[in-house]
């Protein structure tokens, strides 16, 4: 069970890293996520069921996610539409596109198909599949995290940091913010779609409604992470997002597990999620004023 929570937390942690990129680094609150997550799942499921294979599924999920983000950024740049609205527009359009990708179906099962997860577990026969998966996802997510850390140390990565802080300064330095937004929001949604592709294989289906609640999950992971470890160093920033995602999954899980003891029904969980984010925000804010956070 512990391994289950960690695996889910790690899969959704990749999505949370994408949300962190737009929300915290680019300062571009992006709602495309609710559409690009099922987009990745749909592309992956379509590739697996049509026989194109897992490699192409993951690659095309990344590419399609990047495209979705680029569309949002372009709508924002060219039409001077606010961030949130641009994201909502793309998310809305993706609903129809996702159904098309799955061959005019709302739901594509992967239950008895060969997926990345079955391949990984078959590569280590004799070991408990749950722990094999946990090991695999730790390595995968750490790899993505390290790549992101290295990316943020490049010239381009540093420009992204500056762009979110002070767009005028970036302009004055002779960089076109519009181009960088296309790249940045694209990378963010590529991560989200990749996470969606993994989630579809983990739960055994892709569904057009898979994106519900994704932005909230990503934000919660980011906020809980900030509550856990206050820091400005990039490797800590990315690490705490993943830890936040795992902890948030664990909290929801315990709400489900022990909630009955305080007469809580599963439908109360959404309220709990919202309150939890507010709670983390309040504590983080208080920490900034005073001694500096919970674990500093």
């Amino acid at each position: 069970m512990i391994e289950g929570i960690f695996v889910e937390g790690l899969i959704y942690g990749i999505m949370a890293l994408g949300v962190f990129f737009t929300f915290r680094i680019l300062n571009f609150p992006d709602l495309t996520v609710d559409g690009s997550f099922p987009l990745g799942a749909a592309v992956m499921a379509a590739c697996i069921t049509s026989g194109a294979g897992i490699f192409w599924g993951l690659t095309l999920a990344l590419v399609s996610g990047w495209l979705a983000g680029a569309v949002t950024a372009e709508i924002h740049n060219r039409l001077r539409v606010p961030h949130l609205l641009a994201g909502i527009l793309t998310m809305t359009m993706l609903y129809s596109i996702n159904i098309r990708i799955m061959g005019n179906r709302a739901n594509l099962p992967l239950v008895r198909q060969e997926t990345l997860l079955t391949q990984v577990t078959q590569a280590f026969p004799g070991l408990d599949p749950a722990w094999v998966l946990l090991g695999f996802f730790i390595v995968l997510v750490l790899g993505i995290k390290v790549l992101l850390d290295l990316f943020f140390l490049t010239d381009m990565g540093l420009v992204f940091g500056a762009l979110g802080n002070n767009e005028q300064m970036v302009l004055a330095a002779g960089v076109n913010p519009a181009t960088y937004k296309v790249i940045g929001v694209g990378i963010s949604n590529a991560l989200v779609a990749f996470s969606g592709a993994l989630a579809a294989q983990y739960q055994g289906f892709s569904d057009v409604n898979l994106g519900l609640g994704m932005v909230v999950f990503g934000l919660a992971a980011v906020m809980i992470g900030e509550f856990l470890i206050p820091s400005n160093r990039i490797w800590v920033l990315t690490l705490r997002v993943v830890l936040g995602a795992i902890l948030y999954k664990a909290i929801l899980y315990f709400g489900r597990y022990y909630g009955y003891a305080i007469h809580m029904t599963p439908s109360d969980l959404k309220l709990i999620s919202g309150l939890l984010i507010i709670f983390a925000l309040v504590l983080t804010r208080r920490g900034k004023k005073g001694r500096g956070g919970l674990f500093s």
Partner: protein
Amino acid sequence: MKKWGVALMLAASLVMMAGVGLADTKRVRIGISKIVAHPALDALEKGVQDGVRESWPEAVFDLQNANGDLSTAASIAQKFKAQQVDLAVGIATPTAQALVNLLKDQPVIYCAVTDPVDAGLVDSYDKGGANVTGYSDMTPVAEQIDFLLRIKPIKRLGHIYASGESNAVRLAQIARKVCEERGIEFVESTVASSAEVKQAIQTIIRRVDGVYLSNDNTVFAALPAVSEVCMRHKIPLVTADPSSARDIPVLAAWGFDYYRMGVATGRLAAEVLSGKPTAEIPTRYMTEAADMDLLVNLDVAGQLGLTIPPDLLEKANTRIENGALTEAR
């Protein structure tokens, strides 16, 4: 200091998780994973419990609800796996898929899944899976459309369904085929949310002589809007859900009661708990005449200027006449 904090936090959660595994009881434990709170699915959930309790009065139920968040479906399955429930019931397609995907050793019973083979739950209609079987909520689409044809010979049939509900998409395919076979024009309109239903019916109402709605949670949430537009244009409306037709003016509704399907699913679960292998139980359907409910609204028929053939009226176990509801049987 910082690292210690995180380590402590994680260690604390590990200890909490380890404690969970100790909670164990000897009674039969059944996990029910429901996709969303909805009158039909709630009735189904209650039916499952009542059905199981007929033979296992001591059974303990863990009722879970994904609140429509499909990503939660896998978390619920994970929970049932960790708890080692004796049997898991998945209500609706995505929750059933997540259970089948994650639970390999415990039996999984699905219900409210229209086409289990299409949904990837079992390989064939003739037998169950290694640990999977269940009830399909396939509604008799052809019979329902024929029923409407008996009351009023129509040339163009309107149909609204949610493009995001896999069950609804499948039923619409069947309805389209039935109409082709009967030589009727099939006029369809799809919606993504309940808020779009009124507009959808308004766009097709002038091009149809009758409207048929099959099992579709999104559309039924907006049934009053469909009924209102149909009544205004004097178009007969036939649905697959008798329970909503009790309050909302619909010419006729013919389908099964979700509570009764729940009880049947519960009895099936009890059989599996008693040791019957799931592989020997093919997907079951609510096809018995006793499973079906036919509701006829004579007030609506009067306003539309239609007469219900006496033999059909004979079959109706619920009638609405002069605003009063009478139940036979």
